[in-house]
């Protein structure tokens, strides 16, 4: 399998008191033609990792090869093969959409027509609009247009949908799928679990500057998410349940308690709920709400890191 990207023992530390270790030894192999997701909570080291892969930040240690060429020796050969969107680039307000894309097109010796790039991101109707007139979702699509106009082999998207409404997010997903369907390689970061599940062939979960899990979304869910999840909250005033009591509930494999919210990883949800209700009845406790769902990446993540991806989780 052809590798688009290969990183070995990548580390990045920032000087200071104390020294900040943003990335602590990451190995990555990203295959040509796949959509690869870097997942993790804020401050986990996603963006630092991405910027090292993009050649924008010099690693403290480790090696990176892009299409078998090293950044250290072949930066001028690598750069034209990449399309990059950064977190929060604000383009010139007074330029039109087309002018902005044209500017970026001029940096590449070969590529596609600016108009075509705008069509790919469904922004052709806005081509004469000023940048300042665009909505958040349109701005993100413009950012992608500037990244694909040089017809890159490898596209980097840093949190492409953060802060967008659900509709805009879905439009953006379509753009990413379209690009992937052309056989291009995509590396994206996100802290939306559903996004990674929807778009990515493989995912690396990063926490505290390290990869803590790597695989297809399905693998990760199967391996780390459990089969089914039961979540419940006790009515207010009830004495909390402790972990050992919950582990006795039928078919429960694992327990995670987050303030008043309880999560049970179970094999047979019906059996487990019946058993849980009995436990509560016997101990004179009352359940205020209960829900059950198939395990998601979110559950896998909580299982792996013991914390939620985002404080305001679940969109």
């Amino acid at each position, binding site marked *: 399998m052809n590798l688009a990207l290969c990183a070995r023992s990548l580390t990045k530390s920032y000087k200071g008191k104390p020294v900040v270790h943003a990335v602590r030894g990451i190995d990555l192999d990203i295959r040509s033609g796949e959509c690869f997701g870097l997942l993790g909570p804020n401050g986990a080291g996603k963006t630092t990792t991405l910027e090292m892969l993009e050649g*924008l930040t010099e690693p403290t240690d480790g090696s990176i090869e892009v299409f078998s060429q090293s950044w250290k020796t072949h930066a001028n050969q690598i750069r034209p093969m990449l399309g990059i969107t*950064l977190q929060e680039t604000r383009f010139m307000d007074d*330029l039109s959409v087309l*002018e902005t894309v044209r500017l970026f097109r001029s940096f590449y010796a070969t590529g596609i027509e600016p108009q075509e790039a705008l069509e790919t991101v469904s922004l052709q109707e806005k081509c004469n609009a000023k940048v300042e007139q665009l909505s958040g979702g349109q701005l993100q699509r413009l950012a992608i247009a500037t990244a694909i106009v040089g017809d890159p082999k490898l596209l980097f998207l840093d949190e492409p949908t953060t802060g967008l409404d659900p509709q805009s997010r879905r439009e953006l997903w379509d753009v990413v799928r379209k690009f992937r369907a052309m056989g291009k390689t995509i590396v994206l970061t996100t802290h939306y679990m559903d996004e990674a599940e929807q778009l990515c062939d493989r995912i690396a979960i990063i926490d505290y500057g390290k990869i803590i899990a790597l695989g297809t979304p399905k693998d990760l869910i199967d391996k780390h998410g459990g089969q089914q999840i039961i979540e419940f909250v006790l009515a207010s005033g009830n004495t909390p349940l402790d972990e050992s009591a919950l582990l006795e509930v039928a078919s429960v494999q694992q327990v995670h308690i987050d303030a008043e919210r309880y999560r049970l990883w179970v094999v047979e949800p019906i059996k487990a709920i019946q058993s849980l209700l009995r436990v509560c009845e016997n101990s004179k406790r009352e359940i205020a709400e209960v829900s059950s769902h198939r395990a998601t990446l979110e559950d896998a993540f909580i299982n792996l890191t013991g914390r939620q991806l985002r404080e305001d989780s679940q969109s």
Partner: protein
Amino acid sequence: MNTPIRDLKSPANVTPPSPTRRKKINVLSPLLELVLVRIRVFIRKPQAVFWTYGFPLLMLLALGFAFREGSETKLEVELIGAQRDTVAAILQAVPELNVATLSDESTDSDWKRRLQSGKTRLVVRCNETGEPLQLWGSLGRAESQLATAIVERELWKAKPTNETSWEVLKLSDEGDRYIDFLVPGIMALNLLSGGLWGTGFMVVDMRIRGLLKRLIAAPMRRRDFLLSLLIGRFLFSILEQLAILVFAYFVFGVVCRGSMLHLWIVIVIGGSSMIALGLLIATRVKTMEAMSGWINLLMIPMWIAGGVFFSADRFPDSMQLILKLIPFVAMTDSLRAIMLDGQSISALGFPILVMSVWGVCCFAIAIKIFRWR
């Protein structure tokens, strides 16, 4: 890999893979595109256009009229020296003149300055009896010539009773009017503020927007970007300088006594050094507030020491060497030397060297330490 999750990635609305297109298309060179960006961003901000072009002209207009020769009022003639009352008696009744006598305390430099700044048209030095009167006018000013002619006419008329002779003298060694002195100063000021604000702000704004980082994430040559700043700024500067020169010529009759080519050479060298200075300040600054602070820190001393509104010669001799090493002072002096004294550029070796050294050094350091993010 045919899992349900994978299926989600190939919905019906996704277009089938298309062959990669790699073709040359008609896009301008990156340098030209970058310059165009500069021009577009500038002209689409009406306030920016006003402050760049309108403001210097308004300033000229205001200052020019404040020190304007009043054509409809009477011509001012000032008398000084021992015989001043005798001469005053002759001229007092002339309707075209507004005669004033100066006290003995007023020094030569006082009345010379008044003459230069257009506050008086003619100064008559009335020395001891027997010595000829000295009629001091300013060279090339119509009002001075008119006043001289009128005074001479009156003196002729008075000949039968008064045997005084006179000589006509012209004060010409420095700029004649204040406006003549002011225009090169305003031109220099414009190059200074254009270089510092125009270049520096653009760079800091792009850095704050994360656009600098985005640009170098694309295969943009850094040299092209820095050159586009220089070229873009120059296009505006040339128009600004032209606007000031044309305006000053038509409204105030200000001319360039030296070679226009030499004047433009000084504008280009001086302007470049100001742009380089602006770029140097902007290399690492991360906020607009810090940028304003830095620019003001540089601008204010230059305004004061730079001789825009009054000559820097007035500073004590001990400071003169330091002043001459300031690029802005070198530029103002050179512009004045060419416009007012008609000097050739070959006589301006030192100030041109000062400007060039500043320009080259600032640019080199700026490129070296420029922060793209």
